[in-house]
């Protein structure tokens, strides 16, 4: 992996004796998009604020392109951030929003104009340059926030739930757009989200976090096929994985709903409790002797009310019942 990237080396954040983030080690390569994924309060936004320099690091180091930036003030890190609320200056026009940072940093007027024009064109915002943020739609505001981030020519881009204020359809439309604009250039991208679909769609790799701890880092595929623990297994994959009592003591078996299938008689008997029909697929809730389970089958599959189900043994994921750690 290239050394141009971002490295977090044992980074902790403690407030009043409580760890918001505990010894995080993470590496984001140049041109790579890493998603920080987890439920709210898991430490993902804390991580972002530490990297941005908005909050102080309690322990550990942050390196950007082999330079230690741990103690550097936010304004000197060459880091751009898109906020969940976009944080556009309400009293300034689109152009004013873009110009302020450049003006303060003493970029000359001609150069300023050139850079703003370029980024306005890139994001197709030329017609909106006179508008105030209040006069823009959610998607437009996000584009302006993005423009402001790109204008800095940052060495690292941070995105804090940039899509959560948009409706579902717009979110899906914007995902490839966001990737085209941000990822693939030299700078690493750190993307915070609680939406696994967004993480799967945007990121090259995903870091799953919970309670201030990193649970697992890997490609979406690795997290799905080979989760390190029960939390990751439950968090990645929708509908969520079935967890069943195992034959062995102190173990839990996980089977994903898409791996459960109807079997000839002799397998696990089950009774259909409820169905959700999604068109191409249907989700079936089942009552079985081993507990309630969910099964994802093709939408056109016809199922009897009583049936037998099964799954191939290599699809089973085993976890320790107490620690939740994966048992190979």
């Amino acid at each position: 992996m290239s050394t141009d990237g971002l490295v977090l080396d044992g980074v902790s954040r403690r407030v009043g004796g409580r760890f918001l983030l505990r010894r995080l080690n993470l590496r984001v390569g140049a041109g790579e998009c890493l998603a920080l994924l987890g439920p709210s309060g898991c430490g993902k936004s804390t991580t972002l604020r530490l990297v941005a320099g908005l909050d102080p690091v309690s322990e550990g180091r942050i390196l950007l392109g082999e330079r230690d930036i741990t103690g550097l003030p936010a304004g000197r890190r060459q880091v751009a951030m898109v906020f969940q609320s976009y944080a556009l200056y309400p009293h300034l026009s689109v152009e004013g929003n873009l110009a302020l940072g450049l003006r303060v940093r003493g970029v000359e007027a001609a150069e300023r104009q050139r850079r703003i024009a370029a980024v306005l064109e890139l994001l197709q915002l030329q017609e909106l340059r006179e508008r105030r943020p209040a006069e823009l739609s959610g998607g437009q505001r996000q584009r302006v926030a993005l423009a402001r981030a790109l204008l800095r020519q940052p060495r690292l881009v941070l995105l804090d739930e940039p899509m959560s204020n948009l409706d579902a359809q717009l979110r899906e439309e914007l995902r490839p757009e966001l990737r085209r604009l941000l990822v693939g250039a030299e700078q690493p991208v750190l993307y915070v989200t609680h939406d696994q679909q967004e993480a799967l769609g945007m990121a090259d790799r995903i870091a799953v976090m919970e309670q201030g701890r990193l649970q697992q880092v890997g490609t979406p595929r690795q997290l799905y096929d080979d989760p390190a623990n029960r939390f990751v297994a439950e968090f990645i994959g929708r509908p969520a994985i079935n967890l069943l009592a195992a034959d062995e003591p102190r173990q839990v078996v996980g089977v994903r709903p898409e791996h459960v299938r109807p079997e000839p008689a002799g397998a696990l008997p089950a009774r259909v409790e409820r169905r959700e029909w999604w068109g191409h697929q249907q989700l079936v809730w089942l009552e079985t002797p081993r507990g309630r389970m969910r099964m994802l089958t093709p939408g056109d599959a016809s199922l009897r009310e009583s049936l037998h189900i099964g799954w191939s043994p290599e699809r089973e994921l085993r976890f320790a019942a107490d620690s939740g750690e994966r048992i190979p």
Partner: protein
Amino acid sequence: MRILLLLWSLGPMLWQLHTSLQPPESLVTPAGAPESAGWTLANYRLILSADPPFWRYLLNSTVVGAATTVLTLAIAVPCAYALQRRRGIVGMAATLLLLAAALFPTVLLFLALLELARGMGFANHLLALGLPYAALCLPLAVLLLRAAFADLPPELEDAARLEGLNLAQRLRHVLMPLIAPPLASTAILVFLFSWNEYPIALTWISRNDLLTLPTAMARIAGSSVYTVPYGALAAATVVGSVPLLLLMLVFQRRIVAGLTQGAIKG
């Protein structure tokens, strides 16, 4: 109902206006005697041609008011910002102290203030009057502005920090423009206080040409032992209120906006 309220609050002012336009004799002629003919500007001529002319007091009050407002805001804005940033015990304690100061009965301060004025040579200096005025206004101003800062989304300042704006630049380019309405209403409240303040002005200022409006008006009222010059007093009141009225009309909307903004999230 509305008309009743309007009459309730406007009635005395209109009566004052009416009185100010009456010739001096008509007020003391017994009721039932024939009304003297029509309105007159005699009272206004009287106070404007006095020595010093009445507009002099207007000017004095304006100077004191402006100085007080500028001084108060110059101190209150940084204080309010710091207080809003500083959470936890220290911030709480400071806020409580401010509240206590805001509620402190100022009457108890006059003697001490007078001693101060004498000792430091502040007596009969118009601008020096701004010092106690600003001190008295500061607690309320800081609390109002703190609420205004608290209303701003913190991400705005974070964004500005990331863009490399230092504290002064953030205040100037981002925060102050956004709190303009509460800033304006605070400024007006401070100006009003200074405009109406009587006891401190009375004790600090004795030179005739340096009096502020309230003290000047009191002098008119007490200028003769035997009569009260109602007409002149009324005229002085009208002249003294007109600038305030204009100020209020111009900024009315901002005052209301600013006051309610602070009120919602205090």
